């Protein structure tokens, strides 16, 4: 479980805080979706979780431990983060890349033991990348690379997974497969915190949505509560309608044509 309480993050020289008093909880066994327009503070919040952005105020807790009481490796044993972008300058075989996920357990010197090998194997199986395991990272397509990155995160062996826009560059099949994977991980008891722009997919898969606007929580709750035109329109500043998808019964958002000529 990851809990944000009144988190404030301020960039130097910026007038407004990028994150201004955000509170919510991403619980176990559920997908929590963090949505909002570009620049609403989603990735900044992930940065604060990774302690790459300093918090000006507020607290972050992992289960019952405060983030500040955990050293970086202890954090990485509990929470795995798949960041928005990652490009390797020097390619690695997929197996070696996934094995890097065991660093939080191995530290600087301990050699990989049976538990580490087992965790890698389980991660490769869960992410469904067995056919890729003997390839090298620069030979993978965008969708394959994202799966391999998730496998590395799963090898960390924690029970919380944070994903920052994991399906941005993926086609429909790869994107759906990815969301199915998140659903399975949540079903198996993980806390999945998903930053995404794919509101319609999120509405179908997430248990909870948190809508950010200019660094504040504009709405939070079940997808049916957040996916309302009256809630979304002012935040995204674009005319839209929300209907119900006749096939799957989930709320579906449809942006309207522009107001211009």
């Amino acid at each position, binding site marked *: 479980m990851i809990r944000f309480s009144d988190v404030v993050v301020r960039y*130097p020289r910026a007038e407004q805080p990028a994150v201004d008093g955000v509170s919510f909880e991403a619980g176990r066994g559920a997908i929590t979706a963090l949505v909002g327009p570009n620049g609403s503070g989603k990735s900044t919040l992930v*940065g604060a979780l*990774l*302690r*790459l952005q300093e918090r000006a105020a507020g607290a972050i807790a992992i289960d019952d431990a405060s983030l500040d009481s955990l*050293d*970086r*490796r*202890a*954090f*990485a*044993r509990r929470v*795995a*983060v*798949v*960041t*928005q*972008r*990652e*490009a*390797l*300058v*020097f390619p*690695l*075989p997929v197996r*070696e890349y996934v094995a*890097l*996920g065991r*660093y*939080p357990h*191995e*530290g*600087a010197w301990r050699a990989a033991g049976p538990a580490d090998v087992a965790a890698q194997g389980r991660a490769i199986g869960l992410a469904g990348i067995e056919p890729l395991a003997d390839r090298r990272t620069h030979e993978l397509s965008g969708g394959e690379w994202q799966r391999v990155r998730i496998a590395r*995160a799963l090898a*960390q062996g924690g029970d919380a997974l944070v994903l920052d826009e994991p399906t941005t560059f993926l086609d429909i099949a790869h994107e759906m497969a990815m969301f199915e994977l998140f659903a399975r991980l949540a079903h198996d008891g993980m806390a999945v915190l998903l930053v995404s722009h794919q509101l319609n997919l999120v509405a179908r898969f997430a248990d909870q949505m948190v809508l950010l606007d200019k660094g504040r929580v504009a709405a939070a709750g079940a997808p049916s509560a957040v996916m309302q035109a009256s809630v979304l329109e002012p935040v995204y500043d674009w005319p839209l309608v929300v209907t119900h998808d006749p096939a799957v019964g989930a709320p579906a958002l449809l942006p309207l044509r522009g107001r211009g000529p």
Partner: protein
Amino acid sequence: MRRFFWPLAILALVVLVVAGVVWGAVPLSARAIAAAVMGHGDPNTVAIVRALRLPRVALAVLVGAALGMSGGALQGSLRNALAEPYLLGVSGGAAVGAVVVVSLGLASPFVLPLGAFAGAALAIVAAIGAARAAGGRADPRVLLMAGVVIGAFANAAIMVLLADAPADTVRGALWWMMGSVAGADWTQVRWLALYTAVGGAALLAMGRDIDLLALGEESAAGLGVDAERAGRTVYLVSSLLAAATVAAAGLVGFVGLVVPHMVRAAGLRRHRPLLVGSAVLGAALVVSADLVARVAHPPADLPLGAVTALVGVPFFLIQLRRFA
């Protein structure tokens, strides 16, 4: 490829070291040399072998090993295939220090290395300080740019310093900038051995951190590394390691750039084996370059830095295919 790397690299180094001791201006029999290494036989032969050839080869081994490790660590932690200590202002800073010492008329074998080391250390501190002041946090690009710019400034400073210097000073400074292990003595070897052991051990201890830094600062942070601090430490240690070689042997270019790529091409990718491999191959490269430098154009020695670049450039051009 990977299976054969270690036996081949170590064999190459051993053969080259033996050749480096056997081959020289005065032809000596292998038996006489073997006896001389142990301190027996003709006193002249003992002097040539123990006071000239052995320290020269030993210094070449250390310079190559230190530059190889320095380059491997910098490329990984800065996530840049072009990163090497010389690109980052170490050579420029060291050269400024040396030129200042030479133009002050203090160019004794004792003071010159101190000046070079001080100049290099100053350039490193300036680069790290500039990157911190810029607020780049863990972004290696900021550190890289700061280093490159400090290097450019140092090169300009050298030209200004040499502009109206007497011809002797210019010659001395140029000669030093071309790099050489010809004047090696055991004191130099001992100092550089100490630096290489300490610096190399520090980089090896951070080997896994460098593996993660190579993924990018965000991913490294997510896996439990303090990317900003680890990146800065690797930069500092690798640059100081290179600065120590510059103080001992002048500028020996290209080793730090090209050797880690050769090791990667052989299939060593995790940084701990990569750094050890770069040390072995770097040593082999500098010993062989020194061999070429002393036999190619007798009785004059070719500049060592020129030979390493002559060997390194064709290899790097072949390697370009891997990046294309």
